[in-house]
């Protein structure tokens, strides 16, 4: 693997690392889904994770905001170690935004309400201020005019941009993307990727599970290839694509890059 050594992690809020995963293992029943994951994400770093389906990529990033529980090892997010303590989990989730493959917008709320919900209820922001923040981010993802519609009235690409805006309204320090473009029609992939590139350029810490290799080349600081629940290869995008080391990586790249 890489030359990176992970220090025995001291919990430190001013840590260089945004996310530290140390010897993380996870099982679904008997099935060993994450094996010996060691990953240290620096602040402002953009990481793209790829790999065949069932390789544990989604599970890994879902462990970072505790949508999945790990059974062994340590995960430290923004200086807070994830344990069973609900308060800490809530703290972490407040700082970690997540964008899902299927958007997971709330269909009974308007776009604006989707965006203001968490700031109002979790951050106790006054409604007016929350709406201003929401409109600011909706403008950034270029759909302020849809604010009063319901998610079902928007196209997939627009919905995913709303999902990104919704996460940004909580001013997260880290953003997780779980195959954000996989459920979109080809015509709409670009608008979502452009939004993500914009975000990356502003220095957001991002972990992104995606098969958009163009995106990886353009913005990633590191590309991780996973298979069978393990990190198989991790490198800068240039090296990763030009000069893959592991057999599995070569095989995978030969199949997705034509």
């Amino acid at each position: 693997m890489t030359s990176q050594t992970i220090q025995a992690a001291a919990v430190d809020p001013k840590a260089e690392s945004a996310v530290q995963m140390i010897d993380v293992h996870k099982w679904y029943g008997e099935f060993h889904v994450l094996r010996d994951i060691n990953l240290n994400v620096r602040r402002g770093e953009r990481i793209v994770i790829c790999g065949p389906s069932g390789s544990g990529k989604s599970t890994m990033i879902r462990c970072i905001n505790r949508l999945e529980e790990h059974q062994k090892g340590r995960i430290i997010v923004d200086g807070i170690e994830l344990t069973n303590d609900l308060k800490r989990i809530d703290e972490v989730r407040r700082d970690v935004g997540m964008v899902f493959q299927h958007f997971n917008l709330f269909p009974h709320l308007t776009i604006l309400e989707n965006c203001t919900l968490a700031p109002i209820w979790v951050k106790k922001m006054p409604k007016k201020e929350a709406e201003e923040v929401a409109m600011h981010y909706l403008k950034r993802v270029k759909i302020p005019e849809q604010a009063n519609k319901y998610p079902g009235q928007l196209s997939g690409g627009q919905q995913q941009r709303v999902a990104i805006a919704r996460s940004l309204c909580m001013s997260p320090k880290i953003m997780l993307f779980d195959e954000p473009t996989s459920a979109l029609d080809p015509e709409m992939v670009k608008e979502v990727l452009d939004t993500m590139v914009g975000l990356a350029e502003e220095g957001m810490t991002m972990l992104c599970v995606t098969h958009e290799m163009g995106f990886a080349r353009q913005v990633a600081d590191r590309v991780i290839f996973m298979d069978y629940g393990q990190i198989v290869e991790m490198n800068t995008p240039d090296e990763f694509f030009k000069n893959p080391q592991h057999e599995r990586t070569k095989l995978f790249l030969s199949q997705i890059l034509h």
Partner: protein
Amino acid sequence: MSTAVDMPRFVRAQQVEALPPPNLARGPVAWVRENLFSGPFNTLLTLVVFYLLYISVPPLAKFLVIDAVWSGSDRAACRADMGGSETGACWAFIWEKLNYFTYGSYTVSERWRVDIFFALLAVGVGWLLWLKAPRRDLGAVYFFWLFPVASYILLTGGNADFSGGFWLGFLIFGALLIAVFALMAAILKTSLRPALIVGGGIVGFIGITLALMDMDFGLQHVPTSLWGGVLVTLLVATVGIVFSLPFGILLALGRRSKLPIVRMASVIFIEFVRGVPLITVLIMANTMLPLFLPGDITVDRLLRPLIGTALFSSAYMAEVVRGGLQAMPKGQYEGAMSLGLNYPQMMILIILPQALRIVIPGIVNTFIGLFKDTSLVAIVGIFDVVKTIEASRIDPNWAAPTIGLTGYAFAALFYFIFCFGMSRYSLGVERRLAAGQKR
């Protein structure tokens, strides 16, 4: 220009404009042909239905309206041997007994209080059900606090006459409750002040309510044994409906809880209540409840079946709500959790609004079932609408052949109006909600 099949290459030169659909056939004749006689089977069905309508509607209309007796002061009007007519319904009987069907044996001079109760109920229901009504938050306060307290005072006469011991008990309870809140704040390591304010608020709120119930407004006391008719039916139905939904939601959440004790308790309650007929629950509430309580506490004989029906329907409601919760995609929970919402926020803001919307038909179905099941409280000696009709039917003053049929026709009409109203209202709500948020 059209696309020819054998063309090797084709590039469209101009856009095909949208055209109106072909004007095949419109108008009533076309509608009848398409909807009633579109095929041999459909034609047969149409003819059968027309025949059934032909043999059922005219006699019914004849009995209920055309041959009906509309006025009269005793059985003579509805007996052929005394110069009346007995081929049609005897509405004179209903008219004569309407007060009894409405109030039961409620003290005659005090019946204006029941009328006010009906008016207050109508205002509350209208306020909450009219979706565009102003200040529906105030409406909720009115319906769930002001209205019940006012109804209690109006209907019973208030002046509950709590003893000094009762108030002492309340003080101890209040102190304990505040202490529990303070303890919880200490355990959760949050600040003490809000906990004390909430605890004190709850105790004060209950205290004010009890004091109002205890106050003497100079109204004559009317014991619940005199209540009856529409008053009792609406009371039991309203209490059942108002309590069954929140209890049902709590039970449904309990049944899906990760805590084994909460889950077991919910499952046992739901399965036990669903496995037992309502009549059994009512008889148990009536005869067994006093056995479990200390000797000096008596539960009002109307309150017992009230609790029975509320618990009974909440078990059914729990399963309806659980159906809605099952239908929610996992992504909604994950979306809510990833934004940092805690469990109550996630449930109240995201999951329940959607889950309940899915099961509106099931909820209303349970309400309608509950409304009609209120007629079973007669089994424990409560005079609801059906029971008052039963009692009037055998009045010798109105002994006539059509009295029974007329009474039951009236009961059917009464129940139908309320149940059909609920059904239509729920359809309207469904349509309104569906218009807002197409998925």
